[in-house]
């Protein structure tokens, strides 16, 4: 590896790239359009029902189910059931950045039918005052209806179902907060994949690799220069998106040095993957097809435009086999949840995948034929 040659190749790569309007558009302008577009569409705040993450410890009983479906029917809130296995609901809400939660205790139905008072616990977040208000109103309303439905003997307190309201200390995230790491991930994926697949296959077709093989430049130096270039582009597009996100949409994400490994390893992985895809095909046309087959599922299923936690469970499983998921999840852990342990695990996954793909790229990618 020779730094001077890598620098020379980086310079010529940058020149070629900066003079190619299409490549520039997809690398820098397109993600910008996406963040503006999605930001404007979804920054309207509490449009739609407030989601209440609910643990029902009395789930066998018709009464508890009736209570929850009555809540669902208010159309102001939507019940999202959370299994008891996630443990303490308050912690769960905090980890996931959810604002509202509800716990229906065990024995809810029997207490209710025997006239014994019972508490449901509603967790709300003072930061998200409007959704807290909506949720409290809805739960209160349904509880009142249930209380009235029971024949109340005279002189007896018939407030059978009462609400214990607890604050949950989590940060509440808006759509734009998820969109920033998501779209940084989007450009980490798309700009190397689209152009590396094309470059690898068309340089081979035009004999440019053979041309380069007659110079002292080595394959590893060439690959390194490309990786450096896409890391540079990623820094640039991440800076633009953070600027727009924080400046225009007032996103509250943490910008810290811990996102750097993702901005370095992400492009590293996808440059190598693009080369593998480009080397595997015989013609630029098949290469483009292979590239698209790899790229498109990741463009939509890994938390680019919507958080994976909002996906149906089956799709969440699909997301977890796609490498970009770990890049975006890792950035979410750093920028939103401040969970560096989880981010570190994501990083390990990407690192392992990168090593595998880099080795594969070096093995598959040939300057010259036999």
């Amino acid at each position: 590896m020779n730094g001077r040659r890598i620098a020379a190749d980086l310079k010529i790569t940058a020149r070629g790239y900066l003079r190619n309007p299409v490549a520039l558009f997809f690398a820098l302008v397109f993600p910008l359009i996406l963040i503006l577009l999605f930001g404007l569409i979804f920054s309207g705040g509490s449009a739609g029902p407030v989601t209440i993450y609910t643990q029902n410890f009395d789930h066998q009983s018709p009464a508890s189910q009736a209570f929850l479906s009555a809540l669902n029917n208010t159309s102001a809130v939507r019940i999202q059931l959370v299994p008891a296995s996630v443990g303490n609901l308050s912690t769960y809400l905090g980890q996931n950045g959810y604002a509202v939660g509800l716990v229906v205790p065990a024995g809810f139905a029997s207490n209710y039918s025997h006239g014994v008072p019972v508490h449901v616990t509603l967790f709300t977040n003072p930061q998200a005052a409007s959704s807290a208000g909506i949720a409290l109103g809805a739960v209160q309303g349904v509880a009142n209806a249930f209380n009235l439905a029971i024949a109340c003997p005279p002189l007896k307190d018939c407030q059978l179902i009462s609400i214990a309201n607890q604050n949950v200390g989590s940060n509440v995230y808006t759509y734009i907060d998820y969109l920033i790491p998501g779209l940084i991930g989007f450009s980490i994926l798309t700009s190397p994949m689209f152009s590396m697949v094309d470059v690898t296959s068309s340089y081979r077709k035009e004999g440019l690799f053979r041309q380069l093989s007659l110079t002292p430049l080595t394959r590893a130096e060439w690959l390194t220069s490309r990786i450096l270039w896409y890391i540079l582009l990623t820094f640039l597009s991440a800076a633009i998106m953070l600027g727009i996100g924080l400046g225009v949409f007032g996103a509250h994400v943490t910008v810290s040095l811990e996102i750097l490994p993702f901005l370095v390893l992400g492009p590293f992985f996808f440059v190598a993957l693009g080369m593998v895809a480009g080397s595997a095909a015989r013609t630029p046309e098949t290469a483009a097809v292979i590239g698209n087959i790899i790229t498109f599922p990741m463009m939509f299923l890994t938390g680019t435009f919507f958080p994976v936690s909002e996906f149906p469970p089956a799709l969440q499983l699909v997301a977890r086999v796609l490498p970009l998921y770990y890049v975006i999840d890792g950035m979410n852990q750093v920028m939103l949840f401040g969970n560096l342990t989880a981010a570190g695990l994501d990083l390990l996954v990407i690192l392992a995948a990168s090593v595998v793909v880099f080795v594969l790229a070096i093995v598959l990618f040939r300057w010259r034929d036999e």
Partner: protein
Amino acid sequence: MPSAIEVRGLVKEYGPVRAVRGISFAVPEGSVFAFLGPNGAGKTTTTEILEGLRRPSQGEVRVLGRDPWTEGRALHFETGVIPQDFHFFEKITAREAVEYYSALFHVRPKADDLLARVALTDKADARFDTLSGGQKQKLGLALALVNDPRICFLDEPTTGLDPHARRAIWEVIRKLREEGRTVFLTTHYLEEAQLLADRVAIIHRGQIIAEGSPGEIIQAHGGPARLVVAGGPAVAEFFRGREGVAPTVRDGQVEVPIRSKEEGLGYLDALRSSGIPWGGFTVERDTLEDVFVRLVGRMDDGVLKSEGAA
């Protein structure tokens, strides 16, 4: 003179196809060697093996004493190559391309000098995708010279170029020879080989069918010289009347083979004394092209016959 290139028993197979079938030749240092052959004869395969781009199936290849396949990296500091159909990064200018190559070879960039040598100074700041075919080839030539090579491999450097651009490339090749560099040239323009090359090898169907200086090849494989006289049927009649002469008539010209200059002078003397009107004369010899067409044609006929028999 030591050999810059030595090839012995070179065979290259692509699966069942034998593209090169055991060829041997040597190129003396400082000479221009032209490798001729019809399309698909094995020219480019052989050239790419010499450049280190392909691995030989059998045989021995030495370029400046090195094995190009295993010692390519060292060799590339001493060789310059224009591949057939030279391409470069589309958005990069000629000057930037030379600077890039200079940095890769770790030599001081002399873009102005090199571009002037190939007559591309006026396009120094034009991007590659705006250059014409001839200008692209000239840039390829400039890049091949960045590392001041001892051997230049030029694979069909003038194919598809207009006569003006072709002549400009020829000038550069002559200059390279004057500077003492070895030039290995492939072409299917026979005129080019005859004008530029010290030695020529004709390859056909993977085998060398003739080798030597252009003069030697014409001597060995060409027909006798011909006296061509401009004149009408009377002139043809005059030659037909002579013992052992078989004239051919074409477009008001009469051609007679001559074995020596005395024989030719004898014919002209006799013609002048006969009083038959005639226009003038020239003496024609086979060109390399005539020899090439005859050799390749004869081989193809032979192959067709043997295929027909089988």
